[in-house]
């Protein structure tokens, strides 16, 4: 009985060591957010540099023109309202 209890204790104590010694069931997924050399990027994921440059340049144009347009619209609206009030007051 004592021998049986000792064996169970030994088995319980040895379990974590056995678990640690087990090789992982599968390889961990590749780390995300790390440098991938351009040569290793699959061809279907490669984007031509010209497209990226054209999109970047076009985006800069769109944002800057859009901003000028919104500011001028807001300014025109306020100035129109002010001149209407001036005319009404005069």
């Amino acid at each position, binding site marked *: 009985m004592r021998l049986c209890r000792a064996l169970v204790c030994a088995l319980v104590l040895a379990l974590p060591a056995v678990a640690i010694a087990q090789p992982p069931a599968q390889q961990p997924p590749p780390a995300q957010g790390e440098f991938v050399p351009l040569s290793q990027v699959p061809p279907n994921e490669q984007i031509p540099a010209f497209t990226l*440059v054209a*999109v*970047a*340049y076009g985006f800069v144009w769109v944002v800057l023109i859009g901003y000028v347009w919104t500011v001028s619209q807001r300014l025109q609206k306020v100035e129109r309202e002010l001149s209407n009030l001036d005319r009404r007051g005069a």
Partner: protein
Amino acid sequence: MSRIKAILVMVAAMFVAAPWIINAAPYESTMGLVQKIFYFHMPSAFLFLISAIVSGVYSAMFLFGKKPPSDWKALAAAELALVFGTITLVTGPLWARKAWGLWWVWDARLTSSLLLWMIFAAYLLLRRYGGPGSDKLGAGMALFGMANVPFIYVSVNYWRTLHPQTSVVPTLPVSMGGPLWFCFAALLLFFLTMMSLRVRLERQRAALERYYLSEDNP
């Protein structure tokens, strides 16, 4: 107003000329064509930080001096910080996708830049929908934004990152530095012109508000 229009036409002419000037610059040996994004990305990023500093300084002046023109300038600079921040945060990943094979990495430079953009987006939302007292709350936010700027600038030198360090720009050859500073001059001129227009808009809005208040309380 006609002077502002003339400057805007000049800025537009500079932008039209920019692709030819950039095209004349030599190709960077490892990245090739995609490195040309740098000529807009870096000046935008620089003006993003400058706008944040301008907004922070005028916000501090408004908090201590309580003069409305300081608040108008802080608001104008905050809007421009959002514009240049958007350009930086969109053109950067377009370049990174080709150069690093990734659109985005959560490193100190990129994450803190996104955080600064979010601070100014929150600032503008607060000013738009915050109601009375939002000018002072916003000024406090802009100060937090400004405090973030030195951290963003030096982050590439202190933390592990894929982003180039601050030593790259001063060591550029003239053939690459020329187009870079040309684009920077165009964007700086745009920044100054839009600051002036945006402050004018706030001044007119304040005049309109005074007019309505005087009508309500004759």
